[in-house]
């Protein structure tokens, strides 16, 4: 197992380097210029100077190397310093990856955006799972029952209607017509007491609902398939032949096995939680990571796009690994294999 993890980690390194290179190169190719966003009044020499100060104008490989250094050395050091309040080396002159649009260090922007993304997108993922798993189980256990048919239908609807539409519908119903829920997410809201907690719940309700519906739709289909797969296995018959209660058969024997593929699927989906849900964030102005990315893309804020994209890639690779490890942990055949 450890061998396996080490091996996977070792393989992850070249993959990530390749990805970082592709991302860097592709975005570098894009016809963009940080000074493009500057006022037209700035003379050419000043533009050149700004380009220099942002580290452009160097040959490609130098810029790439510098970006790698910033990403892998400088920023982690800064994070460590912030976390422990210590100073490592000369933190003042350490080059940081800076956003072109706001001129702020990219990492600061990301950290600022993380809480709401994790709250809304993460919670919706969690709720999606909590809805999906029981629905999947019941659907499979009572295959072709009306519950199963309905569940199938609803989850397919959830899957097929774009979130920009469900989101708008939710706003029209719950904000405009009923006036129950706010349509705009307040990222600065702090939960201090029961009332503010209630407000937080209310403002998260719609984006979470819209996203959870989408997530639940997908996961419940997988859950159903996995349970169906296992219900027909011989060991289920063995368990029944031992005189176990149906509940025990289902929850201990079937569920354990069915969760193996689903848990890994869920783990693989977690990077998308960090990536935010661009459309939903945009509609409800959650202004999380997804919104940050799309604004950066539209504003051609290349360093921000590069960093975010690469961060996602790291997360995807990491959670791929975690999914595989989880698979091993849950499945003794692999754990001891």
């Amino acid at each position: 197992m450890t061998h396996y993890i080490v091996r996977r980690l070792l393989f992850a390194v070249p993959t990530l380097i390749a990805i970082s290179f592709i991302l860097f190169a592709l975005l570098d190719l894009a016809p963009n210029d940080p000074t493009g966003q500057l006022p037209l009044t700035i003379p050419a020499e000043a533009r050149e100077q700004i380009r220099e100060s942002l580290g452009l104008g160097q040959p490609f490989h130098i810029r790439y190397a510098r970006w790698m250094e910033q990403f892998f050395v400088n920023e982690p050091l800064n994070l460590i310093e912030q976390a422990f309040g210590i100073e490592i080396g000369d933190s003042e002159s350490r080059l940081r990856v800076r956003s072109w649009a706001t001129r702020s260090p990219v990492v600061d922007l990301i950290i600022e955006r993380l809480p709401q993304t994790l709250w809304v997108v993460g919670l919706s993922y969690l709720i999606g799972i909590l809805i999906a798993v029981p629905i999947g189980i019941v659907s499979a256990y009572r295959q072709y029952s009306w519950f199963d048919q309905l569940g199938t239908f609803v989850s397919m609807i959830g899957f097929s209607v774009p979130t920009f539409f469900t989101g708008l519908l939710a706003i029209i119903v719950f904000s405009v017509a009923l006036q129950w829920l706010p349509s705009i997410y307040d990222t600065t809201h702090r939960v201090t007491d029961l009332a503010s907690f209630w407000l937080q719940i209310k403002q998260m309700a719609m984006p979470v609902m819209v996203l959870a519906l989408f997530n639940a739709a997908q996961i419940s289909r997988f859950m159903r398939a996995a349970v169906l797969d296992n219900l027909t296995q011989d060991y289920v018959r063995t368990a029944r032949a031992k005189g176990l209660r149906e509940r025990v058969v289902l929850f201990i024997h079937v569920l354990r096995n069915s969760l193996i593929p689903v848990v890994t699927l869920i783990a693989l989906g977690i990077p998308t939680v960090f990536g935010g849900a661009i459309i939903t964030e945009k509609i409800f102005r959650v202004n999380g990571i997804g919104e940050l990315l799309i604004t950066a893309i539209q504003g051609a804020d290349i360093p921000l796009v590069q960093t975010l994209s690469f961060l996602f890639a790291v997360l995807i690779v990491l959670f791929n690994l975690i999914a595989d490890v989880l698979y091993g942990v849950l499945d003794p055949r692999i754990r001891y294999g």
Partner: protein
Amino acid sequence: MPATPSGSLTAPSRATGRHRSLWMDVWLAFRNHTGALAGAGVFIAIALAVAVGPLIHTVDPHYLDILAKNQGPSLKHPMGTDNLGRDTLAQVLAGGRISLAVGFTAMFIALVLGTLVGVLAGFFRGLDGLLMRLTDMFLALPLLPLLLVVIMLFRDSLRAAFGPETGIFLLVVFIIGITSWMQTARIVRGDVLALREREFVTAARSIGTRRRRIITRHILPNVLSPIMVSATLGIANAIITESALSFLGLGFPPDFPTWGRLLFDGANFISVTPARVLWPGLAISLTVLSVNYIGDGLRDALDPRLRGA
């Protein structure tokens, strides 16, 4: 009891009567799947409407009748008009052509790529590691920034070469296709890995069948069922992705109707002219839904275990 080899010449009872081919079996099983059948019916209806509809409802989807803007459903405009007086039905029909074309073409690209990579990786041990790392890498690549860059890089050259509409069509289709082949590749590879250990493949080798033929004759037909299922999912996925692209302003030009674009443009008018969002929304959902049901049915029908005894 004298038993000659021909003693068992009686036909097996299953095979008595009418001859059934493989596809016949698939069709029979498919026919018994109510959901799939309904899905196929709806899908064919949509496809027909989109293909033939504009010949019957001959209003130009681009024609602006500013005096007739924001109208509700009427005989002249069965689905009403938008805020520029364009006929919604004509736009939904025209948009359907694009959306379905995007769905099918993107699915086709993804399928060809995925199958190719999957089969090569599964069949040739030497290529496996390399191709699977490539697949992993594509899975780890964040799509959105990539998409944007590709659009920025190639929009103009494609536009110059194929005109604004075909150019962006090729681009969108290509992007969706190239970013959604990985799942297919993984599934196909897994199946091929298992298939190449099956005895009928060993049998083919022992006969002296060439590798190319082993792949085309023995491997490919047997990975058909996951491929078919990927295909149906791929269509649905491409249609949804295209609408998301429209939402983010990365898709087709605004005067170029697609279902996703119509839904997006109509969203602001939801309380003025609800028909504007109702119909494209319904069209997307129904298509995706029907294609999903078809996929479910195909999977059941193509899997001999599920096909029943």
